[in-house]
């Protein structure tokens, strides 16, 4: 079973200025994320990479087609069950790290587990272990406002992995970092995903980062073209 499978996805948006005209972003697109492999999607700005990732994560709905996550069609789920699926099976990392500002680094990492009902003392060890692996042992009690960009992104990676999800969805995770930090975070993310045996769906315009992944697709003319395939 694929952690995420996109079947005949079409996404249209209403054009903002042209009355009822619609713009098609994705057209009859198919994609299967393979268990334990990393997949990158590259493409120009505005090509629909982020839209594709939002649809894959159940954050947005396709106009046509279906998204199957761990064997369940997102469209058939109500808010509560969709939230549970997102909480248990998907980890998100975005360019803007989207951490909870009032929570410490440790609490941010623990948050997905706490939401799923695990008590703090039971999930603390796992959160500490992740933060230590990413070199944040002395930053655990700091709130995001006191962390550097690279540190925040590393906290976001830990949070994404906290519930041991089947798949990590990452949208330009190093886009806001300087070259040195970006390279470090790229390697940490890929290593951690491999060590934990998770799947990764990465959306980036950074070709170097993308080609470190097992599979690479180019999103062009509303559809995907395979650029690199895992051997």
């Amino acid at each position, binding site marked *: 079973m694929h952690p995420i499978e996109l079947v005949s996805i079409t996404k249209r948006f209403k054009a903002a200025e042209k009355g009822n005209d619609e713009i098609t972003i994705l057209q009859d697109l198919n994609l299967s994320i393979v268990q334990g492999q990393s997949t990158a999607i590259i493409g120009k700005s505005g090509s629909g990479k982020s839209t594709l990732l*939002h649809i894959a994560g159940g*954050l947005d709905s396709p106009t046509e087609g279906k998204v199957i996550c761990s064997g369940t069609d997102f469209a058939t789920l109500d*808010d509560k069950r969709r*939230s549970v699926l*997102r909480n248990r099976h998907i980890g998100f990392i975005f360019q803007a790290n*989207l951490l909870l500002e*009032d929570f410490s680094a440790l609490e941010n990492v623990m948050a*997905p587990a706490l939401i799923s009902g695990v008590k703090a003392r039971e999930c603390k060890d796992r959160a500490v272990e992740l933060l230590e692996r990413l070199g944040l042992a002395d930053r655990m009690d700091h709130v995001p406002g006191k962390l550097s960009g690279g540190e925040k992104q590393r906290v976001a990676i830990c949070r994404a992995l906290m*519930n041991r999800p089947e798949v990590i969805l990452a949208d330009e995770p190093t886009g806001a970092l300087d070259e040195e930090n970006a390279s470090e975070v790229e390697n940490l993310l890929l290593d951690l995903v491999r060590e934990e045996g998770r799947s990764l769906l990465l959306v980036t315009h950074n070709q170097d980062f993308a080609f470190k992944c097992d599979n690479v697709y180019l999103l062009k003319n509303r559809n995907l073209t395979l650029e690199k395939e895992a051997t």
Partner: protein
Amino acid sequence: MNPFVLLWSRKRVLKRGRLTSCLILIALVMAPLVCALIFSDSMMEGITSKYIYLSDGHLQLNWNGEKELSDFKADEYSSMLYSCDEVTSGYALMYSATGTSNVMVKGVGKSYFNDRRMDQVTFAVSQLAEGSTSNLKGISISRATADELKVSIGDRVALMIVPDDVDKVLRPVLCRIDSIFSSGYDQLDSLLCFVDIDYAKTLYGAKESTCLELLVTSEYMEKLDDVISAIGGGYDISKWNEHNVSVYENFVTSRQMILIILMLVVVVAAFYTASVAQQMIQDDMQEIAITKLIGASDTLVRRSAFLSVYTVTFIGMILGIILGLLIGLNLGPILTWLSSMGLKSLSFYLLDFDITVPWLSILLISASLLLISYISIQVSLGKTKRITPIRLFTSM
């Protein structure tokens, strides 16, 4: 309770200034409400006690043509009755060189001012007056009347007796002020004037002018009908609240009005909590979207936000009650101090009263606050449904 709900709420309560101001507002609303309830209830009970012990007794036995009052054997009801005193009363105009005052002259025996009555009143007695050999009859007037007539102990006043029989004529008698009393409630004090019962009988000879004033034991204070049944027929028996009916009805109405007004204040405060909840959602829109992104359902988000505001409301309410109780339990000294600082209008009220805490009313108001807050916060939290992670991404 979901651990994330607890953590999220704790963060909000500790870190959001708006919630702190909500807490302070609720506390500042509840404190005066509790204080006002204590003040009104205690004062009304205090005034009622003054009327009972100094004016009417718990029960009054009047002659109705069947049995003589002297036939009543109080000893037979010793478990029910604390005291039984013969009282002769009538009305008079009191004159001094500088003023006049309407008074009710109460003729009482020496046993009348027992411990319970002495708890309600203080007397200033002149040594000179006690040892006086003057032929003038001694009377005891209130501090309020003494101030009005500008007289003091040892001075003489004239009583113009209003006759109890239409055939009799108005007649003045001269008396000497032997003592001045004060119960702390000037409005009642200014109506009363105590004389010896034998002398009162010479002024008001009619049988109807004399009655027996009964005070019941603590056990029977709420069971006056049982006492009336036990005494049976042969007399006209009236309860304390049947005298000065308008005074007591005013108390009941005032109490109800105060409670209604306080409830309205509580309703406003409760709706304020809803606006705090709404504002909190507005402020935390991004954080709510992030929590939903990492898997929190809308129910979980609402529960977290609700717990934050409700906890603050609850803590504010408890603090307000404690503050109100602290002020309320020290109302006596505070009012006396305010009165001594020149707030003359306070002298119309009873300043010296036992504090009673109206727990039931406080409970009612607290329950209303919690209930209305619960409903209004829940309604205002409906907006969280519209906050989705994707909407936040598109606006970022």
